[in-house]
């Protein structure tokens, strides 16, 4: 078991989950409450990583980061090196790849909040932001936990995008799923099996948590 790549992957998944929460909460809020006609376009863009092959995302991300693209050249002039094959490239790729896993559960959760409660909060003089923090979010807490668990688990198991933009550097871009693939390629089945079992266990725990919380097997706030 390659612990270096394991902890690297956990670090990546945690960081991506935090970034996606910060991005996903406002996007999900906007998707739920906006009345713009072109809202469906934003929903389509957010949902695209669900249906696109990761290799497509990885391919375009690599092209965008390379010194042949304006974006890549701009970054190179700023920092002196290209972004591909760095941990930062994995973070960018994973944020794009896991975006729907944060936004869609959140938007679905916000949509189930009783509109009367939101209206009541507004008539009592609460600002939109205050209503969000005090009414909408607490009532969507299981959606929030679903989003966190899915985003974390999905990023842990990410393969295609990392394969395309990572360059497989130990300690920097070699994640667990890449490590498993390499072990299988090299026909080291025992080693591949160990690592794969750990990932299997993590996925099972994360998904069990999601379904248990959604079925209210446990009260989410037992101390209330």
């Amino acid at each position, binding site marked *: 078991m390659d612990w270096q790549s394991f902890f690297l992957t956990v670090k990546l998944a945690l960081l991506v989950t935090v970034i996606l929460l910060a991005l996903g909460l406002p996007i999900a809020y906007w998707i739920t409450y906006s009345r713009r006609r072109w809202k469906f376009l934003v929903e389509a863009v957010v949902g695209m990583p669900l249906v696109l092959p990761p290799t497509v995302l990885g391919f375009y991300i*690599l*092209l965008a*980061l*390379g*010194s*042949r*693209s304006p974006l*890549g050249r701009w970054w190179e002039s700023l920092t002196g*090196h*290209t972004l*591909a*094959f760095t941990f930062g490239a994995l973070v960018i790729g994973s944020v794009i790849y896991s975006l729907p896993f944060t936004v869609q559960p959140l938007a679905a959760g916000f949509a189930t909040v009783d509109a009367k409660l939101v209206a009541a909060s507004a008539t009592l003089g609460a600002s939109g932001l205050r209503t969000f923090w005090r009414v909408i979010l607490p009532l969507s807490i299981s959606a929030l936990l679903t989003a966190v668990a899915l985003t974390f688990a999905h990023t842990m198991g990410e393969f295609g995008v990392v*394969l395309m933009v990572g*360059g*497989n*550097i130990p300690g920097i871009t070699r994640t667990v799923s890449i490590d498993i*693939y*390499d072990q*299988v*390629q*090299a*026909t080291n089945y025992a080693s591949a099996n160990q690592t794969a079992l750990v990932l299997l266990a993590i996925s099972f725990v994360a998904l069990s948590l999601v379904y248990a919380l959604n079925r209210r097997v446990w009260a989410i706030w037992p101390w209330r």
Partner: protein
Amino acid sequence: MRAILAAVLLVLTCPLANAASGGELTVAAAADLSLALQPIVSNFQRQTGNTVRLSFGSSGDFTNQIQNGAPYDVFLSADLGYPQKLVKLGLADTGSLRTYAIGRLVLWVPRDSKLEIEHKGMQALVDPAVHKIAIANPQHAPYGRAAVAALRHFQLYDKLAGKLVLGENVGQAAQFVESGNAQLGIIALAHALAPSVRTLGRYWLVPTDSYPPLQQGVVILSHSQKKTLAGQFVEFLSNEQSQAIFRQFGFVAPAGGH
């Protein structure tokens, strides 16, 4: 209606009639053969009247699949290690293992690169403009292992290890270079000579004494029902005509020849 049905039946039975004139062979081949093997197989089909179904992929993947019962008759690997492993496991015929071609390693840069690999050779690798060097993964790709061996031979490995990025195969390593994310790649000559790649970059042949020969081995798989035909195909790979095609696509004939 009856005419349509007859036409459909005719179309359906046509390939059957065709196949009956000769046997059909299923061949798994390493991805670096994707260009060289096509003309060789066409020759074989034309000259013997048999049909060959080709699958291209990574030698490691094929070895995994064969261990799990994949129905190939012949396996052309990009190295000797995987076929030897299959022989040891009893999944390939011991006597059938032989080297059919030897690969060559090259430095590869985009066409407009300022790196003068043609004059500087390996010393181009230490140019300050080189931030990343793309190679195939030495853990399982033969060309990756050869690249590391060559770097060690020129005592550049320790200096450059931090700059190496690993593609899953030489194709991905070349793509890292082509997209401008790495400045230089160490890849297979067969890949650098491919028509789609040839126009994109320039190459320099790494001296053959700096890495162990990239011998590519072929085996006939034990469960094959078509051993005679498989043997005929393996024999065909060694004839003068096939070896000339291998040379044309960046391979070297095995020493001594068959």
